[in-house]
């Protein structure tokens, strides 16, 4: 999500490197190779089904395929994280205790102590609400590889060369020739289209502008859904929440930049990627909401209307079973209370004396 925009804000280095060997391109080489392989594999599949190898639709679908493969590859990690969040419900009381302890203390030392205790608690129970740092960093070179592969098609086709691997010169040429609706080439960006005004440039500009608007709207909508529905009350108190609220309005504007400077093929990749994120988030908010959030309450109400409820293990059961379970839990709690030794209110010596004299 955020990564797309990070990419958008990096200035594109060396626009016309015909095949120079710098450290950057050497590091990126394996990622570009993989991206090209996926792209070519989809293209091969679609042409095998009888689609024209240089048609815009074939290449657009190949780009869609690329998004699907990359996003599906990280999907298991995403599910793992969501499942870990479920377990958070069990430690919620202990977590609350820690939060109460440091309530209103905003100095650095208190914040540090609170973080330490929270992290120790997560580790003890083998759960965490966060994903982890490595996947974030691994996605980065893939996104860069995808970006350079799609962007360099224009240059490579002009020089009559191919990419780093399976996207050889002929395929590069086909990609270069591919046009959307017969007029909008996939390698052209908004600035070039406005400057050179090739035949049918109005269509190209319209497509790009519409895509940028749709990207801004989808990004904003996705973030708004998370912030307004899927945050627990605790998450809504911190400094990070304020930051998220500001980012909600700032981040989508990054797409204006990408829409102006990046070729149609790259913009299409981001657009499809955005749609995927939106769908994924919609499903999560509906079926696996953060415990304690508004979305979780909405889901409980939806289930109640169908005569179902979520039991202590987080499974959906008929309401009768749920009520029986609640009754059983209540009885157990009462029994435990009875068995526990009664605590007597301590009395000061003075008061005990007074009471004795009465």
């Amino acid at each position, binding site marked *: 999500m*955020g990564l797309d925009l990070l990419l958008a804000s990096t200035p594109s280095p060396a626009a016309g490197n015909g095949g120079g060997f710098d450290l950057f391109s050497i590091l990126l080489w394996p990622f570009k190779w993989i991206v090209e392989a996926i792209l070519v594999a989809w293209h091969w599949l679609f042409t095998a089904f009888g689609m024209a190898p240089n048609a815009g639709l074939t290449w657009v679908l190949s780009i869609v395929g690329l998004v699907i493969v990359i996003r599906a590859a990280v999907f298991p990690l995403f599910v793992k994280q969501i499942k870990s969040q479920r377990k958070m419900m069990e430690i919620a009381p202990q977590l609350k205790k820690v939060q109460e302890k440091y309530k209103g203390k905003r100095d*650095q030392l208190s914040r540090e102590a609170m*973080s330490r205790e929270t992290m120790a608690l997560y580790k003890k129970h083998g759960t965490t609400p966060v*994903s982890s740092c*490595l*996947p974030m960093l691994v996605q980065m070179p893939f996104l860069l590889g995808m970006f350079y592969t799609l962007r360099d098609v224009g240059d490579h086709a002009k020089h009559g060369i191919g990419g780093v691997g399976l996207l050889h010169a002929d395929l590069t040429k086909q990609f270069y020739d591919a046009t959307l609706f017969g007029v909008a080439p996939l390698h052209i960006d908004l600035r070039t289209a406005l400057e050179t005004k090739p035949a049918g440039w109005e269509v190209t500009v319209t497509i790009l502008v519409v895509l940028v608007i749709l990207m801004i709207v989808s990004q904003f909508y996705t973030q708004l859904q998370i912030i307004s529905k899927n945050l627990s009350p605790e998450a809504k108190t911190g400094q990070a929440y304020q930051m998220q609220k500001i980012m909600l309005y700032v981040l989508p504007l990054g797409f204006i930049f990408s829409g102006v400077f990046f070729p149609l093929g790259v913009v299409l990749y981001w657009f499809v990627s955005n749609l995927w994120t939106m769908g994924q988030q919609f499903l999560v908010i509906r079926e696996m909401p953060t415990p304690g959030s508004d979305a979780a309450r909405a889901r409980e109400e939806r289930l109640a209307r169908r005569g179902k409820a979520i039991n202590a293990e987080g499974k959906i059961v008929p309401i009768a079973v749920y009520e029986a379970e609640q009754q059983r839990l209540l009885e157990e709690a009462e029994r435990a209370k009875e068995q526990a030794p009664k605590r007597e209110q301590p009395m000061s010596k003075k008061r005990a004396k007074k009471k004795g004299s009465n």
Partner: protein
Amino acid sequence: MSALPSYAFGTARFRASDLIRGILVLPRNAVLAFLVVYRAVISPLYGDVCRYYPSCSAYAVGAVQQHGAVWGTILSAWRILRCNPWSKGGVDDVRPHAHFHYELTPHGFVVPARKD
């Protein structure tokens, strides 16, 4: 941005008279400057993702302060590799350098220690 641990900043200040001695800590301060910018600008985009305290970027600050630009970067890279979906997370502090003879500024930069 997650909080820096208290051992990652101090009260020292850079004095002009330390200019020559300061060259020694120039590489680590260059890396620290990058980390300060990263933590202020890029970290907030990700939100809280790290499984450890201190977070990976805060760990990197401590590691570079204590062990210098090269070894500190290696330690940080190893930490990022450990911060994966299969790790348990928890509290994981930087092991301090056995003979750390510099001082830290409030922003976490390293300056030569005062001789007096």
